């Protein structure tokens, strides 16, 4: 089966039929099941879904931090799943990762200057002065004063500043692609906006391509060109952001959009927009995995796995009864 979520001439990243499963106390968790997607050069693809839907696992499988059972991850034409050792390490210098908890992802005993310089050391840049210069440049770029920051320890910084440091560390090797895994979920509203703006600024400055993983649809919409919606290990829908929000095709996308709290007292939230909780990825429902929560589900949804297919130009949904 060949799923083409978005046929693209020369994508930077191409994920093909990726399957990631792992064993928890003797049971198989179907974390990522047959996911295919492309990300174009310079694009930001948002990846949304609830906790446990496999979005972080997908991000890690792209970097080969978790090896896939089957499928391919083509980065700039190279199949990362077939690589190992030094070639993979070299390739990874072009792909970086930013995590949700900025404080926990910095070593508390090391100075900021050393933390940000570490990727350079690993990449084999031996000249300390050159390293110093690169670290200092990247810290300035993320809005920190290198003279004040480099000698200090992570605990001396707030969550927002720690996330700036993590972004600097991800940028220091001048990568092509950054996977942002819930980069702002641990931050306060006012700081969140600063970091989102910074990511946009850095994307333009360093010519980055981003995979932006988050559970907050409004945040994802703010930064993404296209959005992929994931549910229990499968993609439900992929579409350009505005199109997805204006006319969702998959009932799950519609449910997610309805559930967003809107800061307007005249918009009294509609009651009972949602039906239950996601089932366990250990025993996902047959057919369409969303059918147990779906108002449109019928016998066909239980029997047959819906494939991702075009429902509108550039919009793809995996549903037997799409909303459009």
């Amino acid at each position: 089966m060949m799923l083409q979520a978005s046929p693209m001439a020369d994508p930077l990243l191409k994920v093909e039929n990726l399957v990631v499963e792992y064993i928890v106390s003797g049971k198989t968790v179907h974390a990522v099941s047959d996911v295919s997607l492309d990300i174009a050069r310079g694009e930001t693809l948002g990846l949304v879904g609830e906790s446990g839907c496999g979005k972080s696992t997908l991000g890690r499988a792209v970097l080969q931090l978790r090896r896939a059972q089957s499928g391919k991850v083509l980065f700039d034409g190279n199949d990362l799943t077939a690589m190992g050792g030094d070639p993979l390490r070299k390739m990874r210098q072009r792909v970086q990762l930013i995590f949700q908890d900025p404080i926990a992802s910095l070593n508390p005993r090391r100075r900021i200057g050393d933390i940000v310089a570490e990727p350079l050391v690993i990449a084999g840049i031996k000249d300390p002065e050159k390293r110093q210069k690169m670290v200092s440049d990247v810290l300035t770029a993320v809005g920190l004063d290198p003279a004040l920051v480099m000698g200090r320890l992570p605990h001396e910084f707030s969550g927002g500043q720690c996330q700036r440091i993590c972004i600097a560390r991800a940028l220091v090797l001048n990568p092509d692609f950054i996977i942002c895994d819930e980069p702002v979920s641990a931050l306060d509203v006012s700081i969140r906006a600063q970091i989102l703006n910074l990511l946009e600024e850095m994307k333009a400055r360093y010519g980055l391509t981003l995979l932006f993983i988050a559970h907050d649809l409004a945040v994802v919409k703010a930064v993404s060109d296209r959005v992929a919606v994931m549910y229990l290990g499968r993609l439900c829908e992929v579409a350009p952001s505005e199109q997805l929000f204006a006319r969702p095709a998959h009932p799950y996308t519609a449910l997610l959009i309805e559930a967003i709290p809107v800061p307007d007292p005249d918009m009294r939230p509609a009651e009972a927009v949602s039906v239950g909780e996601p089932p366990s990825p250990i025993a996902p429902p047959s057919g369409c995995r969303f059918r147990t929560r779906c108002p449109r589900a019928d016998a066909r949804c239980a029997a047959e796995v819906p494939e991702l297919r075009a429902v509108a130009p550039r919009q793809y949904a995996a549903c037997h009864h799409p909303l459009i």
Partner: protein
Amino acid sequence: MNKALLSVEDVVVDLPTPRGNLRAVDRVNLALGPGQTLGVVGESGCGKTMLSRAILQLLPKKAKLSGRVMFDGQDLASLDPEALRKLRGRSLAVVFQDPMTSLNPVLTIGTQLMETLQEHLELDVSAARKRSVELLAAVGIPAPEQRLMQYPHQLSGGMRQRVAIAIALSCEPKLLIADEPTTALDVTIQAQILDLLAREQRRRHMAMILITHDLGVVAGRTDEVAVMYAGRVVERAPTPALFKKMRMPYTEALLAAIPKLDAAPHTVLPAISGRPPDPTRPIKGCSFSPRCRYAVARCHGEKPELTEAETPAHQFACFHPIETPVAVPS
């Protein structure tokens, strides 16, 4: 409000820290009538949780509380620990952010629910059991009889929060304090839990304080909102009035910083520059002045008091309140 269920009068909470005194709550006044909902909004460290703990009389040992908390006609500070314990859980209940830490991991759901019922309502085992099943069903837990035998780790985050709510509701409290009840949950589950709280509140005519950092959460679900910054209430108004015409620049900035669904992708967000002040180093003027785009010399030298706007119910602490109505995003 003529007959308040809860009134918080000039409450100050001081916490001694190695870096000096930390004023977590600074002269807060609030009142809440029976059946009403108050939203308390602010960023981490603004004092909203300390305020709720001051109301519950559950402050850390070293904390110093001054001012008065009147609940249901009683001054809570005057009650002995035993009387307070009877009050909490019975007429004053609380739901915390993280249901995993508020539930006891080594006791079954049933034991924890029945314990509260037997203690406060003096029900016998079979009556408590029956009531527990009813409560679990009321908060939307499927197969409640079987759940009684399960432990917290066997439930999902949303289910655990439902259990915590069932325990909080079990003795028909007059006031429920919900401290970031949905922050740890997914957005679809958040909507379900907020709906559940609203439904049970209406049914029981219970007052509620909903503490959150998300203005979107309070918008459709509260009667009144108090916005906190650096330990103080900086704006307080009936919810519709607040969203129609906010006067305090901090409230405006907080709302503007939320990504809007109707904005085009890659729109630059109006972020609030800088970060909240260090609470151990009080600022002479308005605490928001270092980050405020309207601040003038007076704001840096003098602290604005909470004053009334056109309507007595709408109060704000600002020398240069916003005059033009803010466009509410739709």
